[in-house]
C-alpha cells in the first residue's frame, strides 16, 4: 500500500506552469513514475497530458449543470474557470486508456504509467470521483505492470484555485466505491537525479513446438508467440543475475554510481523448451531468437534485486509490446483492405501478414522480424524507448515523443541509442536443424537472404560511423606520411 508519494519537483513545477498558462478548463493525463510495494512509496517523475483524440477533441472537458444543456464531450468553453459547484468532468476513458497503452510501450524498467492526473477545480473534482476512478482503472488495465502487480494506482489532482497538489491512492477493486480512493501524503523532492541506471541484454533462443492437436489448429503465429512468451515469464523471473560481474546474493542497496551491467543466468537446458511432454506429434517449430536491450532505473532507496526484477519485467514487456505493434499493424492492414477479396487458397500467404498466419496449415518456412528497440534520452539521464518496424525511421520515433510523451523532438540523432540491430533473416536451416538443442542460430554471414528483408536499413545505421572511422584513419596515415616526407626532406 503506497502511503507516501514524492514528486520530482523540477519536472512538476514545469507541469504546473504549463497548466496555469493553459486556458483549458480541465486536463487529464498520465502519471509516469514508480510504485514501490517494498517501500510503500510512490515516485512521480513526470505528468504527460493525453493528446486530443482522432476527432480532434480533448480527452477531458467540464460538463456544466443542466441549465446549459450542451452535449457532453463537446469542447465547450466555460464562461469562467471558477465554474459553479455542480459542474463535473467528462473524460474519454477509452482514449486515455489507449494513450496509456501506447505510452507504456515506451517505458523502460522502473518507469511506468502509475496513474492519472487531473487539472480541475476542487468542486469539479469532487463531483467526478466516479469517472476518475473508472479512468484510473482503464489506465491500469491498459498499462499493467507485470511485476507483483500492485492493485493500486495514483490519482493526482492539481487544483487551480487555490493552487494545490493532492494525491490519492486508488484501489483497483472490481467495483469502484467511494472507499476506493484514499488520500496519501504527497510532497515534492528530487528523485530523478539520484536514479541508478542498469542495462541488460537478453539473448532469446526460444523454441515453441506446434502440436498436432485440435486445440491449436487455429493458432496464428502471434498467438503462439504470445503464449510462449507469457509462459516464459516464470523462467525469467527465476533467473539469477549478476551486476557488474558479481552475483546478486544479498539484497543490498546499490552504492556505486554509473551504468551497471546486468547479466541474467538461466538454468542450463531449461529455458529453451518451455513445455514438457512425453510424446506428442508436432507439425513444426517456432524459433524466437535475438537480443532484447533493456534499461532500468532504480531509486536510491530500493535494493538491487528490485533493479533485477525491473529489468526482467522490461524485457518481457518490450517483447510483448513488439508483438502488439505487429498485431496493431496487421489490424490496420486488415482494416484498409476490407474490400479486398477474402483469402483465396493460393494467395492466402501473400495476402495475410506473416503474424496472422495459421501455422497448422502453413507448409513452408516463414519468418518475421520484430521491431527493434531504440532509446531516447528523457529526463535527467534517463531513457524512454520506442520500437521501430523495419520500414520505420527515426522520424516515427520523434512523432511518438512529441505526441505521446509531449516532449520536444530529440534533434540530435546521435543521442538516440540504437543497441539492437535490425534482425537479418536467413533461413538456411531446416526443421531438423531447428529442433536440435543449442544448434547455432548465428546467421551465416555472407548468405543472401531469400526473404524480402530490408537489409539496407540495418546497415545504414552503422555505416556513417564506420565511414567516419575509416576516413579518420586514412587522414591520420596520410598526415603521418606527409610528416615523414617533410622530415626526410629537411
Amino acid at each position: 500500500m503506497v502511503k507516501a508519494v514524492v514528486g520530482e519537483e523540477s519536472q512538476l513545477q514545469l507541469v504546473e506552469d504549463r497548466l496555469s498558462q493553459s486556458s483549458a478548463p480541465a486536463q487529464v493525463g498520465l502519471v509516469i513514475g514508480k510504485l514501490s510495494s517494498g517501500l510503500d512509496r510512490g515516485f512521480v517523475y513526470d505528468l504527460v497530458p493525453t493528446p486530443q483524440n482522432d476527432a480532434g477533441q480533448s480527452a477531458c472537458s467540464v460538463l456544466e449543470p443542466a441549465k446549459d444543456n450542451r452535449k457532453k464531450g463537446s469542447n465547450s468553453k466555460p464562461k469562467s474557470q471558477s465554474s459553479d459547484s455542480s459542474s463535473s468532468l467528462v473524460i474519454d476513458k477509452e482514449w486515455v486508456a489507449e494513450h496509456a497503452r501506447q505510452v507504456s510501450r515506451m517505458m523502460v524498467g522502473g518507469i511506468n504509467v502509475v496513474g492519472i492526473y487531473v487539472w480541475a477545480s476542487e468542486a469539479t473534482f469532487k463531483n467526478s470521483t466516479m469517472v476518475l476512478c473508472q479512468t484510473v482503472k482503464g489506465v491500469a488495465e491498459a498499462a499493467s505492470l507485470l511485476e507483483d502487480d500492485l492493485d493500486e494506482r495514483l490519482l493526482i489532482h492539481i487544483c487551480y484555485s487555490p493552487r494545490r497538489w493532492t494525491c490519492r491512492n486508488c484501489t483497483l477493486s472490481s467495483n469502484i466505491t467511494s472507499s476506493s480512493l484514499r488520500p496519501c501524503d504527497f510532497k515534492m523532492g528530487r528523485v530523478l537525479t539520484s536514479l541508478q541506471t542498469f542495462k541488460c541484454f537478453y539473448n532469446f533462443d526460444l523454441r515453441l513446438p506446434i502440436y498436432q492437436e485440435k486445440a491449436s489448429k487455429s493458432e496464428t503465429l502471434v498467438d503462439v508467440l504470445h503464449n510462449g512468451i507469457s509462459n516464459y515469464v516464470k523462467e525469467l523471473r527465476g533467473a539469477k543475475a549478476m551486476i557488474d560481474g558479481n552475483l546478486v546474493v544479498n539484497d543490498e542497496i546499490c552504492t556505486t554510481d554509473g551504468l551497471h551491467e546486468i547479466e541474467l543466468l538461466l538454468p542450463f537446458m531449461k529455458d529453451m523448451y518451455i513445455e514438457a511432454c512425453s510424446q506428442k506429434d508436432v507439425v513444426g517449430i517456432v524459433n524466437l531468437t535475438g537480443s532484447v536491450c533493456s534499461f532500468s532505473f532504480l531509486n536510491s532507496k530500493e535494493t538491487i534485486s528490485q533493479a533485477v526484477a525491473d529489468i526482467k519485467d522490461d524485457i518481457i514487456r518490450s517483447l510483448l509490446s513488439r508483438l502488439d505493434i505487429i498485431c496493431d499493424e496487421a489490424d490496420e492492414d486488415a482494416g484498409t483492405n476490407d474490400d479486398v477479396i477474402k483469402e483465396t487458397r493460393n494467395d492466402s500467404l501473400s495476402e495475410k501478414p506473416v503474424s496472422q498466419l495459421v501455422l497448422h496449415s502453413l507448409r513452408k518456412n516463414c519468418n518475421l522480424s520484430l521491431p527493434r528497440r531504440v532509446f531516447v534520452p528523457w529526463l535527467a539521464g534517463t531513457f524512454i524507448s520506442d520500437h521501430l518496424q523495419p520500414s520505420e525511421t527515426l522520424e516515427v520515433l520523434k512523432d511518438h515523443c512529441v505526441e505521446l510523451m509531449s516532449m520536444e523532438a530529440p534533434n540530435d540523432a546521435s543521442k538516440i541509442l540504437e543497441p539492437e540491430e535490425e534482425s537479418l533473416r536467413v533461413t538456411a536451416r531446416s526443421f531438423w536443424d531447428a529442433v536440435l538443442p543449442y544448434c547455432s542460430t548465428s546467421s551465416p554471414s555472407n548468405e543472401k537472404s531469400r526473404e524480402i528483408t530490408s537489409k539496407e536499413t540495418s546497415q545504414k545505421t552503422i555505416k556513417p560511423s564506420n565511414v567516419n572511422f575509416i576516413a579518420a584513419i586514412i587522414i591520420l596515415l596520410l598526415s603521418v606520411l606527409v610528416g615523414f616526407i617533410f622530415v626526410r626532406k629537411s
Partner: protein
Amino acid sequence: MEKNNRSIRIECPKLLITRNESDLQWLIGSPFFPPLTIISTFRCIHSGSSSPDFLKESEEIRTLLLKGLDVIGALIVGKSDPQKTAVTAVEAARNLRKVLSGKTNLENEEIIGAVADPDTGDIRFFVSENERSANLDLVNSVSYDANPEKFLWESGCLLLCQLPVKLPVCFPVNKPSDVEGIFSRAIEAVIAKLKDPNVVYMVEASNKASLDVVQPVILRGADLDFDTTAPNIEPLDEAAHSSEQKLLPCGHFCLKSKSTPHLFSAKNADILQVSVLLNRSEKSPKRSAPAVEYFPAMEETRLLIVDFKLEVLCYAVQGIPLMHAISKLIIPGLIDQLISMKQTTLPNLLTQHPELHPYHFCPPGIAHPVTVIYELSYGETEMKQVDARRSLHMRLGLPFDRPLLRIANSLDFSIKGRSSTSSTRKGSSLLKDVHVGIPSSGVSGGIVSLVQGSYEYYHYLQDGFDDSGWGCAYRSLQTIISWFRLQHYSSVDVPSHREIQQSLVDIGDKDPAFIGSREWIGAIELSFVLDKLLGVSCKVINVRSGSELPEKCRELAFHFETQGTPIMIGGGVLAYTLLGVDYNEATGECAYLILDPHYTGSDDVKKIVNGGWCGWKKSVDSKGKSFFLQDKFYNLLLPQRPNMV
C-alpha cells in the same frame, strides 16, 4: 635411486582379499594423493575366459568411481610366479585405464601390480614405471594407515552438481529408426554446450553454516581450461592466495575448524554445490533485434522429451582451484553420466522411459563415496534391482546379508537432511540409540559386543497408549522392528499393539478375541510376528534359570558380532531388550546392556539413563542382588539378519 625410496601407502579401512584363486581387484587411488597410495579396491566382476571384460568393467567403474579418484593398479590372487602374475595385473590395470580415459598413450604412469597369496593373505607389491619396459620393481616398504578417513577428509571435500536435463528429440513417425541418430546428435550438442563460453558455473557451500558466510562464486565457461593434454591438476600454492574468483581453491567453501577426528568421514565432508547456468546476456559483437522463424515439419513428426536427472559427485582436495575442479572433474563427470544414461536409454528409446537416478553411497569399509545409477521404474525388491545390488555388493566387497546400497542408505545432500538428525514418526520423534554414551559396565578386561546399527526406544505409555503392566514384550518387539526398518531391511511401519495381535490372529496362533485384549505375549509370539511381518527368522535360547545365563554369554557375544540385532529376553517374568554384552572370557565376568520397556516417563535421555532404564546390568550386582532371577526360566529371542541386500 628413487626406486629405493618408493613405498606403498594403504589408506583403506580394510584391504579385503578374497581367497579365490585368480581373483582380480582394481586398486583405487587419486591423482591428488602421493603416488602409490591405495584407498580402496573394487573387485573385477566381469571376466572373459582369460582376461577381464574391459568394456563392461570400464562402463561400471566409470559410473561408480567419483571423478577425482582413479584406478592405479590391480591385485591378483595367485600362487604362481608372483612376478609374472604382477605383470598380468599391471597390464590389466593399464588396459582399464586406457578404456576409462579414452586415451591410448599412457606411457609414463606408474602402475601398481600386486599379488596376494591365497593361503597366507600376504601381498607383494610391484610397480611398473613405463608401459614399454617390462621390468617391475618390487616395493618392500608398505605402510598401513590406521585412520584412512582422516587422510581422505582432512583436506578433502566433495563437489556435487545436480543438473536436470530435459532433452527434446524430434523424429519422423514413419522412420522411427532415425531417432537414435537424432538423439545422439542432441546429446552431443548438450555435451558441447557444457563447455561453451557462455555457460556459467556457480559454486556455493551447501553447509548451512558456511552458506551464511561464504558468497557463491561464479566461474564463466570462457575462463575454464579444457585442455585435456595438460598435466594433472596441481593444488594451489598456499602462499599464492589470490582474490581472483577463478583461482579460488575449493577450500574457500570448507569449514576451517575440523578438530574433532570423528567428523572425518564422507558424510561430514564439506560439500560444494555446483550449478550449471547459461548466461543469456553473453557479449556478442552483433545484437540483432528478436526475430521469429517458423519451420514446418515436412513429414509426420513426433516430439519426445527425454528426462535425465544428472547428479555428479566429485572428490577434490581443498587446494585445487575451483576452475580446475569444474573443468577437470565436474564437466567430465557430467559428460560421462550423460553418456552412460544415453546408453541405457537408447535401445528402447521409444517404448520405455526408464527413470534413471544417480545415488551416492558411503558403504562401511570404504572411506570414499561411490555413485550408482538406479532405475526407479522398478521396485527396489524386484529381482532385477536385487541382482544389480548383489553385483555391486560383490564389487565393493560388502556382505550379502546387509542392505547397504538401498536408496534409503544413500547420502542425503539436502541442506535440511544434513542439519537434522532426529527421526520423526507421526509428528513425534522417538529416541534413537539411547545406549550411546552411557557409563561402562565395570567388567574388567571384558570385550564389549553391541547391537550394530540404530533402533528406536519403545516403552510403556508411548503414543498415549496405556499398556502399563502387560505391553513390555510388545514394546520390545517394536524396538526390534524399528531396528530392521532403520537398517533398511524393510519399510513396514512399526506395528501397534493391535496390529501385532492382529497378525498373531491372522497366522492362527491366537483366537480373534485376542485382538484388543491385554494379554501378554512372549518370545515365541515375537518370532511369529517377525516372521509374518518381516520374513525374519529367529534363533531361540532357553535357560531354565537366570543363573544359567552367564554361560550363554559367549553365544550372545557371537550373535552381536555376526548378526548385530537386538535380542528380546522373555520368559517367566518381565520382558527386556538386550543390546549387548560385556564379557571377559578368562574370568567369566559379564554384564548385559539392557533396554527396559517398562519405563513410563517422558522421552528424556538423561532421565532414562540415570534411572537405569538403559544401562549395563551385571548378573549379580554389588549388593548381591541378581538381575536375572534364579527361580525363573528365560527365553532369549535372537533375530537373524535376512540374507538380503
